[in-house]
């Protein structure tokens, strides 16, 4: 074993391995750093734009750092604070109500669909899964909700379509199956608890990581939704936050273009560019603020789902 020759080859390979490893790590570090910078850069651009004076943007364009520091964009946004606050109110309301209600329904459905003593679980699972295979398309869906259910300009339409997706139900089903042992449900039944009672006192507690993940998916969906407003909401007081931002972007551009068409340079008076960026920051702020806390759960939930699934 300990012939000199053998030791020599061993140290040789070890050396080569560590050299390779060093090289690989060097490449990894640089590549990951470059990608991370690219992920952050656009946020910096918007932040810088929101703190620049409009004049400097119009003259010199957007920069990575504010060339002429100014708060006029934010002042413009909060000149009419009621509109922004209303949009915030609508989004917070739909996010809270939609996420809570959606979680309640999804966990109940997931619980029932994974119960082996529920005879029709596969039939109903397919009933839900089939909707991902085939659908009527956007237009029949829109006409039905708008014309037959009369949901235009209601909070119901802002909440209802986002309540659940087949993907989230399947995720929850798998999660409950792995987190709640059958024996536990069995013994609770013997103790006389009914299925709803089991759901409330056992499933809801054991499936917490799964509930957190699905809840985050739901909340993110509601918070970032602009599409529902664009289809169903005509009353500006009921615009979701993202649609309000979308509208601000387009309206200011529109006013700007109108002004150019009539030969008046409005840009000097209305700080259009910096207002757009300030508006974007005001709308996105909470997500960026909450993100570090939320992200951990997301990674955890996804990790569990990926490994188990």
């Amino acid at each position, binding site marked *: 074993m300990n012939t000199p020759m053998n030791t020599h080859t061993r140290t040789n*390979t070890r050396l080569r391995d560590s050299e390779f*490893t060093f090289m690989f*790590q060097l490449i990894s570090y640089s*590549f*990951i750093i470059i*990608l*991370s910078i690219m*992920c*952050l850069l*656009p*946020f910096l651009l*918007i932040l810088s734009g929101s703190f620049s004076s409009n004049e400097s*943007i*119009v003259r*010199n*364009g*957007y920069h990575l750092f504010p060339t002429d520091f100014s708060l006029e964009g934010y002042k413009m946004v909060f000149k009419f604070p009621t509109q922004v606050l209303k949009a915030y109110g609508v989004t917070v309301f739909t996010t809270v109500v939609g996420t809570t209600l959606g979680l309640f*329904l999804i966990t*109940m459905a997931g*619980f029932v*669909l994974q119960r082996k003593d*529920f*005879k029709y679980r596969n039939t*109903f699972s*397919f009933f839900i*899964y089939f*909707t991902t*295979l*085939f*659908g*009527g*398309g*956007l*237009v*029949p869906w829109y006409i*039905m909700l708008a014309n037959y*259910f009369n949901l235009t300009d209601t909070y119901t339409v802002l909440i*209802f379509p986002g*309540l659940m997706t087949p993907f989230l139900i399947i995720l929850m089903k798998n999660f409950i199956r792995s987190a709640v042992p059958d024996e536990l449900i069995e013994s609770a039944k013997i103790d006389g608890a009914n*299925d*709803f009672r089991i759901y409330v006192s056992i499933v809801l507690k054991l499936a917490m990581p799964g509930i957190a993940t699905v809840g985050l998916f739901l909340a993110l969906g509601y918070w*970032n939704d602009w*599409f529902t407003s*664009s289809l169903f909401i005509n009353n500006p007081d009921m615009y979701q936050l*993202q649609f309000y*931002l*979308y509208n601000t972007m387009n309206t200011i551009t529109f006013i700007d273009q109108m002004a150019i068409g009539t030969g008046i340079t409005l840009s000097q008076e209305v700080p259009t560019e910096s207002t*757009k*960026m300030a508006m*974007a920051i005001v709308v*996105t702020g909470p997500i*960026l603020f909450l*993100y570090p806390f*939320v992200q951990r759960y*997301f*990674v955890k939930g*996804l*990790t569990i789902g*990926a*490994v188990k699934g």
Partner: protein
Amino acid sequence: MLKELNKNKIMFLMLLPTLIFFLINSYFPMVGIYYAFTRYDFEGGLFGSPFVGLENFKFLWQSGMLLKLTTNTVGYNLAFIILGNGLAIFCAIMLSEIRGRLFKKITQSVMFLPYFISFVLLSVIAYNMFNYESGFVNTVLKRFEAGPVDIYNTPWIWVFLIIIFYLWKNLGYSMVIYLAAITGISDEYYEAARMDGANIFQRIWYITVPMLKPTFVILLLFSLGSIMKGQFDLFYQLIGNNGVLYNATDIIDTYVYRSLKVTFDIGMATAAGLYQSLFGFILIMTVNYIIRKVNEDYALF
């Protein structure tokens, strides 16, 4: 059925709201497919509009619209699937080999960040970077005396921009999934390989990459199933109603949305939507059938 219903009354009740949800949100609208065969008028409604048979489909086909929409939709999705998974696997492997825990944590968070922002903010970002007068890219180009480029009027650039924005937004998410799969690989394999004198490249190539195959295949199958569905938010927020770019960037979803919101072409929009659903359905069935033949474990259903 009735006996079962009685036995598991509470479970049925617990499932009922979900069933009603899918009935309203997904099954009732299927009746509306009938619009695809009518020239829709607002007075007539569902069954009062004149029946025109396959005329809507014929028009979509003859105008070349169907072909263009299909090529764009499928083409972009293939690019998303191939490049998206490739980049995610690449980054996950690199990140998994990095020792510094704090560095790992911070970079992973930073790369996951874009997944959380709305598509409206994405459009603000695109505007900030690419608009003609003050966009960041043109600001930089001007500094190098390279003159401004009118990006919003140059269709071919958007083919790349859309793909890049997609990768930018989704990298963190898919990377987490692959990273989880890598973490699940037992250390013993690597130890054994190291004993046998495999260097880091060999270890990655002969252990990590093959072990990622199941995760990759499952994600691939899921995405192949929805290859006819576009990333509507991404395309619409980046392109909007900018007609100059349609040839390079119009997908079925954006066409349907525009037909509904802008041109009110209900019959045509429903026809395009039905084509999308049917084509996608046939595609999933075919893919699933083939997989079942090759390896039953990977089949979707």
